[in-house]
């Protein structure tokens, strides 16, 4: 065996007095370079994968020129070193070489025809390499370097020249300076340069430093997944079928290493039993990560569901501590995971993962509910790794002089979220704290708000507007179509016969020009295209190349510069939807390309110029709701320079914030409240209507009119460009657990009020019990109220601090102290607060006899009933939407969720927007949340509103639906069909569609029974034009 030979040769070198032999060895789960200095270590040597050692060798030799080192070298290492020696960067003498023969598979991957030589009898004269060197370099016609791909978490390989991930923007190749032989100077490799037709390979480029003057800095450096090798007991890095959740994410992906097939890395077998282990690198002091990563419970649930959807044989099991489904819609999702998908949740910490040698299956050992040790076999284990700050952010923080917390997250303060310790530097995303996608989006908007707040006055001052020539009138002319067929280097031309398609295009009706380009999108081709448009008097342009999703705006801009309306343009996608997907059907691909060009030309002939109109924007904001979120939003708009109307239903501002007296972090919300009210009332740009309600709102983005009704019945109409809904929520008044019947049963808010009053009676209590999830997570209210666990712990700690002798019991289902509030949970446990877990099927029973409260609760850990006799019982009651949410929503035509909170445009990606354009959402009206989160969301909503308010005009796209009033029967079909509530019936009893509000989907046009509506640019004629020439007859 080759390895034995290598060991024997290395052993010989060590015997001969070499100081060490450089080879590969597995340590901490990874294979890497290792200097073997004793013979005992040699059996640990690894021979795969291929790993360039030339650079390490050079460093060794340079550092210790007097020592002698051996190298386990492949042909490419030797070629590299010979080049380095030629350049005077390496001294061959004192080096001993042991050749390692690459496998055929490796040689194939590297495009290396053969391992260079058999080394058994080699004397190391190097002459053979010198002879073959030149040839070897020229032979390479693609990148020879293969390394594990980062995006696929190392499960698939990539070259040193690569596209980082399939949906990268821009979709262009980049070179990996760490591995590229040419960039590293190890070899004069021309692999990529030999084949690049665009001449885009530059070797002379180098890092440049630029100085840019900015008004503020926004940090969004993201996170690193926790390094699972640190938790050695789970075997990650040693056991192939133990993967991280990030790796499993790639395994599930249709664009991933297994193309969406759920397979195990060890043998490609489809796993049946898959286990997720939660909290790997989270809530764990032993690895210095005692915070909760906030997202793992949900992503594990998602992965389990998706795995099940991919392969119904899969039996997913999730091992967890607490299920933290605290986000909007999460509780229902977890509920569906169990009820609909059969995901099994097991509460228990897995202590070890062992591998069966024969099957590569895994044996998990965990503590069951009853405390017994349980062993269970699985096919695949997924480690739900936590979120840690990126490795590079520490240095970044030092350079920027901002403070980090002890974990390396950016330090921010509770009432000034997204602001770092240094003025003018802001933070968003997981660098702030572990968070999910919607929170990241909200944070990003909030940070963008902050970054523009100080420099609001400079808004727009550096913009230079592009001026286009006036448009040529084409409607009276015969169509004259020009067709530009793109070769896209070889991307199209390798598969599609581009000259044939171009010649074919010339034969099509109305085509007066057809030509081909190597790259139609290159700058010089744009100039050429403009010349041709003028020379041939083209009035319609077709480009047959790639996707209009990426390139249509570029070509439209070009034809505008040539004086044509941008809507006189059409594309045929002969790359993404032809050459790239039919590489093995070349003749058919060329036929299809001809068809696509014919269809594009047919449509182009029907195209009409459309004009994008401008609608004036009322640069004034309306904020509905004067609580924490509403006031923050109003102040935000004002600080950015916009007049704002704030409408509050109550006679005083402040909302729920009046009832919060301290926070988990020890800050004073009442101070914040007083300051906010003062600022709002003294801000000249804000008009406050108290004791007032919105009666109705009409209009569209940039141009709303709202009637506000005052208490006495007076009304006032205001005009505004945007709406921010911050109508808040309320506390649920429990009907269970004797609330309202016994004065010893109170809510957390009531307790907090009494604690804040400094009531002496509270300090004398011997025993207090709290019950969590009152009105949350059950039946009709299948959502988590998010803040109650933190609130209970906050009040419990307060009770303990006031009187350490008070016994406090928290009866809970799952403790959901996500993020950094986990530290407070730990503190509470350390302070001796008792946590008793109950199941929803066996809720605590509360009774009162002779003025004594008695609670019977089944402790599922002890497996027995426990009797408690607290002096008071505190209920962590749910946050409910406003009682009049549905009525209010109908006034603004806003959608609500099943739970009657307002529904955003997209749960993950657009958490601050309504589908109704120009309307935004924040605070409890969106879902339960903390003070800090409300502030972030309010500022984020302002940021969204600014995208409209900051411009005096709004451009209205040409692709909108228009009604022909003479045909309209006012049947209301369009009014009902429109998902955006745009069509309305005018006083003339016809439908009207406001262009500024229309999204251009065309649903109304297809629904209209009299064809009175047409979607411009996609009229029936224009759609049918394509299919009419589907067959070439």
């Amino acid at each position, binding site marked *: 065996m080759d390895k034995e030979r290598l060991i024997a040769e290395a052993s010989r070198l060590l015997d001969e007095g070499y100081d060490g032999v450089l080879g590969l060895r597995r340590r901490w789960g990874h294979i890497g370079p290792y200097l073997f200095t004793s013979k005992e270590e040699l059996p640990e040597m690894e021979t795969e994968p291929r790993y360039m050692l030339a650079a390490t060798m050079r460093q060794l030799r340079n550092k210790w020129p007097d020592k002698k080192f051996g190298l386990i070298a492949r042909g490419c290492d030797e070629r590299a070193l010979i080049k380095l020696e030629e350049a005077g960067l390496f001294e061959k003498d004192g080096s001993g070489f042991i050749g390692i023969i690459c496998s055929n598979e490796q040689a194939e991957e590297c495009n290396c025809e053969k391992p260079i030589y058999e080394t058994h009898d080699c004397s190391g004269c190097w002459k053979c390499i010198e002879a073959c060197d030149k040839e070897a370099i020229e032979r390479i016609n693609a990148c020879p370097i293969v390394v594990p791909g980062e995006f696929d978490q190392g499960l698939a390989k990539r070259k040193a020249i690569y596209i980082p991930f*399939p*949906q990268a923007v821009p*979709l262009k190749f980049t070179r990996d300076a760490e591995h590229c032989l040419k960039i590293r100077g190890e070899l004069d490799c021309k692999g990529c340069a030999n084949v690049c037709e665009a001449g885009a390979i530059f070797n002379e480029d180098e890092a440049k430093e630029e100085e840019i003057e900015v008004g503020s800095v926004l940090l969004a450096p993201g996170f690193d997944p926790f390094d699972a090798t640190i938790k050695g007991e789970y075997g990650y890095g040693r056991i192939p079928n133990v993967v991280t959740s990030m790796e499993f994410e790639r395994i599930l992906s249709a*664009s991933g290493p297994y193309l969406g097939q759920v397979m195990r890395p060890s043998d490609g077998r489809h796993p049946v039993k898959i286990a997720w282990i939660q909290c790997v690198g989270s809530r764990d002091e032993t690895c210095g990560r005692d915070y909760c990563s906030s997202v793992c419970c949900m992503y594990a649930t998602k992965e389990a569901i998706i795995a099940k959807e991919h392969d119904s044989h899969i039996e997913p099991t999730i091992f967890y501590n607490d299920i933290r489904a605290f986000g909007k819609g999460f509780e229902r999702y977890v509920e569906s995971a169990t009820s609909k998908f059969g995901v099994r949740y097991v509460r228990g910490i897995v202590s070890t993962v062992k591998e069966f040698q024969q099957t590569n299956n895994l044996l998990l050992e965990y503590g069951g509910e009853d405390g017994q040790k349980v062993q269970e076999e699985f096919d695949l284990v997924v480690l739900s790794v936590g979120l840690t700050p990126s490795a590079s952010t520490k240095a970044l923080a030092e350079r920027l002089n901002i403070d980090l917390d002890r974990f390396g997250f950016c330090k921010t303060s509770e009432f000034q979220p997204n602001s770092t310790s240094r003025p003018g530097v802001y933070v968003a995303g997981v660098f702030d704290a572990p968070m999910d996608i919607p929170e990241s989006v909200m944070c990003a908007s909030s940070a963008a708000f902050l970054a523009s707040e100080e420099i609001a006055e400079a808004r727009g001052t550096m913009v230079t507007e592009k001026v286009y020539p006036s448009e040529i009138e084409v409607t009276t002319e015969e169509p004259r179509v020009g067709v530009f067929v793109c070769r896209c280097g070889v991307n199209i031309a390798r598969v599609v016969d581009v000259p044939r398609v171009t010649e074919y295009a010339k034969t099509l009706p109305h085509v007066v020009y057809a030509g081909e380009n190597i790259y139609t999108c290159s700058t010089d081709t744009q100039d050429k295209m403009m010349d041709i448009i003028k020379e041939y008097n083209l009035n319609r342009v077709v480009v047959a190349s790639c*996707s*209009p*999703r*990426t390139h249509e705006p570029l070509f439209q801009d070009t034809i505008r510069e040539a004086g044509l309306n941008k809507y006189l343009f059409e594309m045929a*996608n002969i*790359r*993404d*939807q*032809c050459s*790239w*997907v*039919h*590489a*093995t*059907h070349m003749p*058919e*691909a060329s*036929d*299809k390309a001809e*068809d*696509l060009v014919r*269809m594009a030309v047919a449509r182009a002939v029907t195209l009409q110029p459309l004009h994008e109109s401008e609608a004036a924007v009322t640069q004034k904001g309306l904020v509905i709701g004067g609580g924490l979120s509403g006031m923050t939003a109003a102040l935000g708009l004002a600080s950015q320079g916009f007049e704002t109307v704030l409408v509050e239903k109550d006679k005083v501002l402040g909302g729920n914030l009046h009832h919060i007296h301290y926070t988990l972090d020890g800050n004073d919300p009442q101070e914040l409240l007083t300051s906010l009210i003062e600022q709002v009332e003294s801000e000249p740009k804000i008009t406050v209507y108290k004791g007032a309600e919105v009666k109705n709102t009409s209009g569209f983005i940039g141009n709303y009119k709202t009637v506000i009704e005052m208490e006495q019945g007076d009304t006032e109409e205001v005009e505004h460009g945007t709406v921010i809904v911050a109508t808040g929520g309320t506390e649920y008044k429990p009907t269970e657990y004797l609330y309202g019947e016994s004065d010893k049963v109170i809510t957390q808010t009531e307790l907090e009020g009494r604690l804040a009053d400094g009531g002496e009676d509270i300090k004398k209590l011997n025993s207090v019990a709290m019950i969590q999830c009152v009105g949350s997570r059950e039946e009709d209210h299948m959502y988590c109220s998010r803040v109650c666990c933190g609130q209970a712990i906050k009040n419990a700690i307060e009770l303990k601090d006031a009187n350490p002798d008070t016994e406090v019991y928290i009866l809970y289902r799952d403790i959901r102290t996500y993020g950094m509030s986990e530290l407070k949970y730990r503190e509470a446990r350390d302070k001796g607060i008792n946590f008793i877990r109950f199941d929803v099927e066996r809720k605590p029973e509360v009774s009162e006899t002779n003025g004594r409260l008695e609670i019977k609760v089944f402790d599922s850990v002890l497996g027995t009933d426990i009797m408690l006799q607290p002096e008071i019982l505190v209920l962590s009651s749910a946050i409910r939407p406003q009682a009049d949410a549905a009525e209010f929503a109908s006034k603004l035509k806003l959608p609500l969720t099943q739970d009657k909170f307002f529904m955003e445009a997209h749960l993950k990606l657009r958490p601050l927007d309504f589908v109704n354009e120009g309307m935004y959402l924040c605070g409890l009206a969106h879902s339960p949340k903390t003070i800090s989160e409300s502030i972030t969301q309010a500022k984020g909503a302002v940021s969204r509103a600014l995208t409209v308010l900051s411009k005096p005009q709004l451009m209205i796209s040409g*692709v909108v639906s228009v009604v022909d009033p003479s045909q309209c029967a006012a049947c209301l079909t369009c009014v009902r*069909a429109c998902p955006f509530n745009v069509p309305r019936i005018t006083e003339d009893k016809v439908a009207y569609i406001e262009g500024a509000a229309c999204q*251009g*989907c*065309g*649903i109304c*046009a*297809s629904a209209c029974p009299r064809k009175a509506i047409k*979607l411009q640019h*996609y009229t*029936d004629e224009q*759609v*049918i034009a*394509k*299919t*009419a*020439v*589907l*067959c070439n*007859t």
Partner: protein
Amino acid sequence: MAEDFEPKVVAFCCHYCAYSAADLAGSMRLEYSPNVRVVKLMCTGKVDTLHLLKAIEEGADAAFVAG
């Protein structure tokens, strides 16, 4: 039906999803049969019975709506 019959399929695709998916298939070089001709719409809600019938009338062997 002839052995070598190759159907022509017209696919009405939504700009935002199915059309993007077809592009993604391209960038991933996923091969499929070259019988499909995609017609892009802003939303498949725009597809009218008329469009489907016209396509069949003009020789399409199948119409496919994806969005």
